[in-house]
């Protein structure tokens, strides 16, 4: 009992630490105000060549008219981002615009902007008087006028009560809670299905392999596991989709959120299999090794001497004591798979948590990122507590 209280305490501490670190990290990344409102600073008009903050900006092609802000301290140069590069500077400077610009080049202090829309880092100049109302509203809603620790506590209070706040970047989008409610069940179903498939594949495979240890068939199976593990999952996903969905037509190609439950589970089978196969290969490796070790134990010889059949020796005597590494990795995997299925979600068009977190990170939408991180952390903690219970069920010696 005491032990479980300790476990629960540790879990709460872990969740708090995860949320604190993520919250801090997201705030280091940039000014939330900017992400909410877009550029609100004293923008310069960049028609043709213009002076902006002391730099001569030269534009190429058609530059839509609008306000441009020069922001410093940016070190990412992604596609679609308009960036101001000042030659000789180690730090590129990023220009934020409301219009669409694409490429930027610079010579000396002459800077060329060729399009691109970017979320920026921080507002360099103060907001214009016309935007003050918006800024105040945003500060109110996101507690931006409070110090960071206070903001954290306020966020946590809301979060614990099930209110994950509004999304940052997309005005008019539903609150984070609604987004999670939509995405989580899919990701959860995908994870559960993948883990069940992986287990169902791995256990018989490992039993078979261990009973034929080091014979040619076992070697072939070992090479197969390595192949599956080494194959990147987009390749595996595309192969499965091509063979089973496109060529054979046994499974649908994409996920449709509007379909009835069973239909949706059917649509999730191939993505689940794509996640399950590499996991199964890893589980098979662990189980096979542990089984081979167990089969050399004296109590296995004892079981043989009792007249127990090969099959029963594997199933009744060797399997249970060999499950520990497998279960441990199974638990760790659960945390990784629930939020990490991005590639698979993309290939099979399943909008789940994986794609949500990547979208949110790209636009620096902290509430969404925080919410998903917390869900993954929570799932991780929960599964590992369950796994502790499973240990005690398997091995009576752990109960003491």
């Amino acid at each position, binding site marked *: 009992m005491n032990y479980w209280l300790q476990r629960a305490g540790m879990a709460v501490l872990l969740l708090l630490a995860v949320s604190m670190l993520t919250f801090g990290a997201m705030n280091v990344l940039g000014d939330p105000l900017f992400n909410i409102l877009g550029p609100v600073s004293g923008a310069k008009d960049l028609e043709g060549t213009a002076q902006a903050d002391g730099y001569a900006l030269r534009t190429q092609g058609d530059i839509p008219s609008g306000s441009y802000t020069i922001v410093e301290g940016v070190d990412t140069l992604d596609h679609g981002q308009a960036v101001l590069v000042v030659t000789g500077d180690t730090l590129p400077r990023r220009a934020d615009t409301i219009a669409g610009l694409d490429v930027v080049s610079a010579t000396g202090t002459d800077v060329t902007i060729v399009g691109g829309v970017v979320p920026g880092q921080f507002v360099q100049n103060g907001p214009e008087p016309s935007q003050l109302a918006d800024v105040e509203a945003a500060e109110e809603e996101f507690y931006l006028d409070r110090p960071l620790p206070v903001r954290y506590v306020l966020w946590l209070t809301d979060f614990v009560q099930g209110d994950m706040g509004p999304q940052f970047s997309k005005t008019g989008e539903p609150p984070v809670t609604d987004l999670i409610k939509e995405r989580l069940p899919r990701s959860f179903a995908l994870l559960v299905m993948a883990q069940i498939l992986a287990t169902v594949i791995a256990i018989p495979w490992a039993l078979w392999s261990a009973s034929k240890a080091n014979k040619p068939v076992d070697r072939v199976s070992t090479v197969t596991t390595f192949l599956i593990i080494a194959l990147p999952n987009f390749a595996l996903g595309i192969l499965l989709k091509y063979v089973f969905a496109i060529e054979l037509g046994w499974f649908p190609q994409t996920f449709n959120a509007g379909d009835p439950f069973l239909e949706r589970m059917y649509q999730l089978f191939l993505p689940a299999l794509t996640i399950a196969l590499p996991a199964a290969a890893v589980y098979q490796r662990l189980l096979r090794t542990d089984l081979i070790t167990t089969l050399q134990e*004296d*109590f296995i*010889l*004892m*079981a*043989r*001497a*009792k*007249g127990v059949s090969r099959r029963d020796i594997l199933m009744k*005597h060797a399997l249970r004591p060999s499950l520990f590494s497998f279960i441990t990795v199974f638990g760790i995997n659960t945390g990784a798979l629930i939020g990490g299925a991005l590639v698979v979600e993309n290939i099979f068009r399943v909008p789940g948590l994986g794609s949500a977190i990547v979208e949110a990170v790209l636009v620096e939408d902290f509430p969404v990122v925080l919410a998903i991180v917390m869900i993954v952390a929570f799932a991780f903690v929960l599964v590992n507590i369950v796994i502790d219970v499973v240990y005690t069920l398997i091995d009576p010696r752990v109960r003491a």
Partner: protein
Amino acid sequence: MSTHLQSEGRVPEGVLLEVDDLKTHFRTERGLVRAVDGVSFSLQRGKALGVVGESGSGKTVLSRTIMGLLPSNAVRSGSVRFAGQEILDLDAKQMRHIWGREMSMVFQNPMVSLNPLMKIGKQIAEPLQIHLGLDNRAAAETAERLLRDVHIPEARKRLDQYPHELSGGMRQRVMIAIAMACGPTLLFADEPTTALDVTVQAQILELIGEQRRERNMSVILVTHDLGVVAGHTDEIAVMYGGRLVEKAPTRELFANMRMPYTKSLMRSIPKLDDPSHTRLLTIPGRPPDLVNPPRGCRFAPRCAYARDRCHQEDPPLVTADTSPDHVYACWYPVGSPEFEARDAEIMEQITTGVEVGGRR
């Protein structure tokens, strides 16, 4: 309780086990390991045979070979007739009907020979269900009775316990109960007391003897300790380097041992009437390499009594003049003039403190 467990002639006679020129070789990367190399003997029903030898003498492999419990790199040849049936050529599937039912084994270390994740009751019930087809309830009742037979208190409670909840001696009793479950005719006890402390050792040997007499079961007791077999066997076979080097009825062996090796084993046991701090005589050197066994007598390189002939020619098993059941393999056995002459020299050297060793 009697400490002498020799059978007293009331058991039906008859040969249960006949082993003829049995060889067990292991294919390894170093080469062929001749772990058992041409062993022959027979065992009467209800009798106890002690197999004695150092580590690596092949005694454990011998018992596992007879039972057929060998790893896949083992090659067996020769003949093992059990209750009139040749069993050496049976495969594991056929042997399964003999294992646990006709032949059982008590292993050396009870700490690791019971499945740690299975309740005691289930482990005892397993052979009962496999061989006798008992249902769960009947098997549980029989298991409880078996636990009482091996003098485990609170037998019913033990059925639901796991091995880690029992002491070493208790676990070895459980092992014996499992081995006894289907009433085997032959029990192998492979160093059954080595992992136990001394007081428990005596109890376990006592228990095996008691079960043997009650069930008229034959026992092959494998040990490195002559003291263990002395009081608990009818016959003793001494093994060295994969071969039988001396075999005799227990009393006869202790009275008239012929092999210098047997004698050395005897001398390496401490005696109560020795003055304290007497140095025990050890056998110099190591057991022979079974990949390339030495020419001639395998013990010769370590034998203080070896002469040239011992290094050249392999001594055959010959019958002793003291008893027709006593065989030994030695060119210059204990009692021969050559032996006595060398022994006198050695004893003198020991008293003057000079190290004695065999020729290597």
